[in-house]
Structures are given as C-alpha cells and as structure tokens.
C-alpha cells in the first residue's frame, strides 16, 4: 500500500492512471491548488533538466567503491579490522581481560616449569676454597686441609695446630 507521499510523487510525475488517479484526486482537499503546485514542480523540473545537466563522473568507480565499503562497515558485525583495512584498537576492557588471561596462562606455565625443575634453586656447584693461610707468627705449626663433600654438599676448611684459647673466648 502506497503512502500519500508516494502517490503524490507519482501524481506529480503523471504516473497515476485510471482508478488510482481518480481516487487520489478525490482525496485531495483542494484540487486546484494541487494542480498549481504540480505545474510549478513540473516547470522546476524542466528548468533544472535544461540548465543543470548531470555531469559525467570521471572517477565513478572510486566513489561507488567507497560507498559500498561504507555501507558494508556500517551494517556488518564489528571485527578487529576496519573498513579501510586499518587496525581498530580494542577497547580497554577487552585488553584488560586479555591481559588477565595471559597472566593466568603465564602463572600456570611457570608453576609447572618450576615444579618440574626444583633443583635449579640449589647451585649444582659446591662452594670452593680457593686459597687459605694462617698467620705463621701466631700459629707456626698450623696446617690447613680442604674437603669438598658431595654427599653432604658442604665444603670444609680443616685447620690443625691453631693456638688453643681458654673457654671464656666462647662467650657471645
């Protein structure tokens, strides 16, 4: 069912015929005024056709392409790619969630890796005594021996012959 505007436009363009034409003209409150308006519109149309001819577009394909892209971008579901192929920034909220997810994955992987390699906390090397000496004046007969015990995981510097001291030297 045509609207009044559609029928009006068709009437102006002389496209209504027969029963439609009769019904439409009967529905007009002032047929004379409408006829006058129709004539004015037709005159204006003729004038525009005469003086403003449609210019041929040199780059018609380009504008059609632009229009199609614009329509597609406005009607399509939003994606990460913009209409012109440019990147569209994610909203901060989504970035935060992606960050949180990445953190959770990182924490999970770290947990499993750490659990599988617990020995890395301890050095695989024993401590080493590189050199040692006693004061020959204070302890002329002292000797030094170095031990590295892989079983106990300790390195021991064993001295013999250091001058003994009285028990009061054991105080804090």
């Amino acid at each position, binding site marked *: 069912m045509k609207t009044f505007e559609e029928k009006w436009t068709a009437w102006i363009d002389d496209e209504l015929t027969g029963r439609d034409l009769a019904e439409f003209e009967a529905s007009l409150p002032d047929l004379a005024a409408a006829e006058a308006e129709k004539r004015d519109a037709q005159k204006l149309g003729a004038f525009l056709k005469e003086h403003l001819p449609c210019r041929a577009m040199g780059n018609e394909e380009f504008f059609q392409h632009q229009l199609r892209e614009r329509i597609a971008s406005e009607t399509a579901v939003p994606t990460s790619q913009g209409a012109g192929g440019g990147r569209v920034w994610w909203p901060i909220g989504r970035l935060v969630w992606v*960050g949180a997810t990445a953190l959770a994955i990182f924490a999970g992987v770290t947990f499993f890796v750490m659990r599988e390699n617990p020995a890395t906390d301890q050095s695989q090397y024993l401590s080493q005594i590189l050199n040692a000496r*006693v*004061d020959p004046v204070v302890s002329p007969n002292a000797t030094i021996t170095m031990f590295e015990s892989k079983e106990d995981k300790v390195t021991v510097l064993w001295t013999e012959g250091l001058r003994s*001291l009285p*028990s*009061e030297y054991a*105080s804090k």
Partner: protein
Amino acid sequence: MQRRSALLLGLWLTLIFGGVHAGNGAQTVWSGLVIANNVSKPEPPSPELTYLEETLKDWFGYNQYKVIGQSRKVLVTGSEDWLAQSKYFSLHIDSKEGNDKTGYRVNLKLFQESNLLLEWEAKLSKERPIIVKGPQVGDGQLLLLLVVQ
C-alpha cells in the same frame, strides 16, 4: 572507567616485573661463629643450623652447636663487605666483584680481637655451605659457617 582499567593494568605489570626482578635479584649470605662442644643436656641448634646439625655432628662429633655471633647480609651489588662478631672473635667478609652464576667470590679473615688467625678466599655457591674449623676454645671448638640462602 578506561582510566581505572589502565591503572589496573599498570599495577599488574608493575607487580609482575617487580616480582621477576625480586626473584632474580639479591641473595642473602648468613655467616655465623659457632661454638661446638659436648654437654650432658645439649640445647637445640638455632634455626640457621637446624638443617646442618647432622652434617656438623658427622664432621666434628660434638652434640651441641651454639651460635655466638652471626650476621645476615643481602648482596645487592656483589661488591660488599660486612662483619660477624662475638665478644672476642670477628669474621670480616669481603665480597668481590666478578661474581657469576657459579657463586660469589669472597675474602674472609678471622680475627681474635686484633690478631689475624686465619685468612682464606672462597667461591660461595647457593645452598652449599662452607664450614671452617677454627681454634680450640676451652673444651669446645670454634666453627665458622657461611651459607648463601
């Protein structure tokens, strides 16, 4: 809303990188002067010595190990010096530059008051203690311990 989310994200990143840095960063060296002797009712060792008690008993045969002086130093730059001391003994520790993954290079000097008794250089690895048998003190023995914790 966006500003709050950005702040939250920044906080997370700070925590992550701060945690990673702290995990890879400074380590603590515990150094102690210990008197080992045999007594009828031995006291339990201090927490720093608990895991070493059996090793100490195996090596030295005493039933009590008592800390008479200690220090705990966090190595930040790797080139630092510090002191563990009791009333009569002091252990000077000087960490040298050039530390690597295999351990810390340290120079150590044991003084009995102002007398230098013993001097040594060592490479100290994590959780691999160095134990030094010092002079006899009364009926016991002075031991020096260094542990990278």
